[in-house]
């Protein structure tokens, strides 16, 4: 299988603070990789580097063997739900990246993604009229509409309530299976990573390096009470040094 994204010896320092240390990672085409680590460890920094928003202090990232030099519409970054443009309607947001298409193509594309993320009937609504989960789906739709080959998701469901969060994960997997994108997903939620990922990249505390890469060899849909699921989850709890008790 071809390697889509390669991180080579990534180091990052802000002033005198070392944030990332010798990060090496290969992501396969079409793979869903979760980058898991405690809050503030530098995993978002890593995502901002591959997204082209930050330059690493040393090392380089390549996508399809081309070095990343800046943000690129072929790879879209999905922020938490606040990334949607509040001044545009649902349609306006989804059509935002489609300025190069003809009107007819644009309309068709918007209609398709409105349907895909279940926002039919809300085309003319503004984000302030939507729930958190709907805004998050809108942002995913806006990203998918430009047909990128990689999606970066930075704790996208972090601000949602736990029930909505579970639904959103199922939605994401459904969309991922339909659209075959490569996905890099940053999270601090162990359960979330085991539910979603093909592989989980477990990061250390700052300066963050990769502690371990866990293959999650469980087919979707995953049974959250199956022994294998619990085994993988508990091995990560142990890796991070948490007793699995409250």
């Amino acid at each position, binding site marked *: 299988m071809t390697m889509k994204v390669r991180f080579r010896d990534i180091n990052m320092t802000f002033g005198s603070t070392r944030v990332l240390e010798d990060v090496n990672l290969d992501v396969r085409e079409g793979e869903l990789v979760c980058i898991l680590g405690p809050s503030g460890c530098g995993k978002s920094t890593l995502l901002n580097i591959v*997204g082209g*928003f930050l330059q690493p202090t040393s090392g380089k990232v390549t996508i399809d063997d081309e070095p990343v030099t*800046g*943000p*690129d*519409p072929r790879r*879209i*970054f999905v*922020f938490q739900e*606040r*990334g949607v*443009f*509040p*001044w*545009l309607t649902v349609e306006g947001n989804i059509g*935002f*990246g489609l*300025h190069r298409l003809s009107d007819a193509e644009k309309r068709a594309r918007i209609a398709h993604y409105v349907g895909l993320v279940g926002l039919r009937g809300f085309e003319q609504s*503004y*984000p*302030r009229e939507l729930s958190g989960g709907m805004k998050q789906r809108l942002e995913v739709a806006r990203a998918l509409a*430009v047909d990128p080959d990689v999606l970066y998701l930075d704790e996208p469901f972090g601000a949602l309530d736990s029930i909505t969060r579970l639904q959103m994960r199922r939605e994401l997997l459904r969309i991922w299976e339909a659209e075959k994108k490569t996905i890099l997903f940053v999270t601090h939620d162990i359960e979330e990573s085991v539910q979603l990922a093909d592989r989980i990249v477990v990061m250390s505390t700052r300066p963050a390096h990769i502690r371990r890469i866990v293959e999650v060899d469980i087919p979707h849909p995953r049974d959250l009470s199956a022994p294998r699921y619990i085994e993988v989850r508990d091995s990560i709890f142990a890796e991070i040094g948490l007793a699995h008790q409250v």
Partner: protein
Amino acid sequence: MSQTHRWLPATGIALAVGLWQLGVSMSAGTLVPGPVAVAKGIGELAVKGLLVRYVVASLFRVTWGYLAALLIAIPLGIALGLSRRGEMALNPILQVLRPISPLAWIPIAILWFGVGDVSAMFLIFLASLLPLTVTALHAVHNIDAVHLSAGLNFGLSRPQLVRSVIVPAILPQLIVGMRIALGIAWLVVVAAEMIAVNSGLGFLIVDARNAGNRYDLVVAGMVLIGVIGVGLDALMRRLERLDSVRWGYADAA
């Protein structure tokens, strides 16, 4: 709002006018005219055709001075907001000019443009220019970085980013600044008209006093200024109800 509360504003005004009338009638020989005299004064101005002429003259000066300021201040403020160096170079000048009352410019306005409309418009332009520029500048600084990043991520060029992200993102704050600046412009036009021209509501006030102590007309001018000021503000407030800016205000939810 309940039915009774709806009448409160009107009741407040009626009460104030009543007290005014009462005060005037209780103190004999006062120079301050009562509300009836003022209403008659406004009627007299209307009959003479001066009412419309003066109101139009004042609004005309405000409109052009204010529009010219908008045209320069908004692009300038955005440019300074985006350019760290530009801001560092120009911000000190803006800060020094800001506390100078626009009225301090009257002698210079007359020196440059003579007595007439252009002087008054220039003063209004100056009075609106600085607050508008500073508002636009700060509004650019307050843009959520996520929105700029998203704009860049979708491959927008610099001009596209300004048009599709920066302008809509600053609009709610800008509209508030525009309201405040229009309020200032309306204050300044009255003062400018007292000195630099011979028409308009400001001129009405000085002229009524100079030509025979017509204090009923002086107060009539004041009332007209107040009422039109409220009208201008209401007009600007309607902009805040636009669908594409309501997200920017606290009651938007």
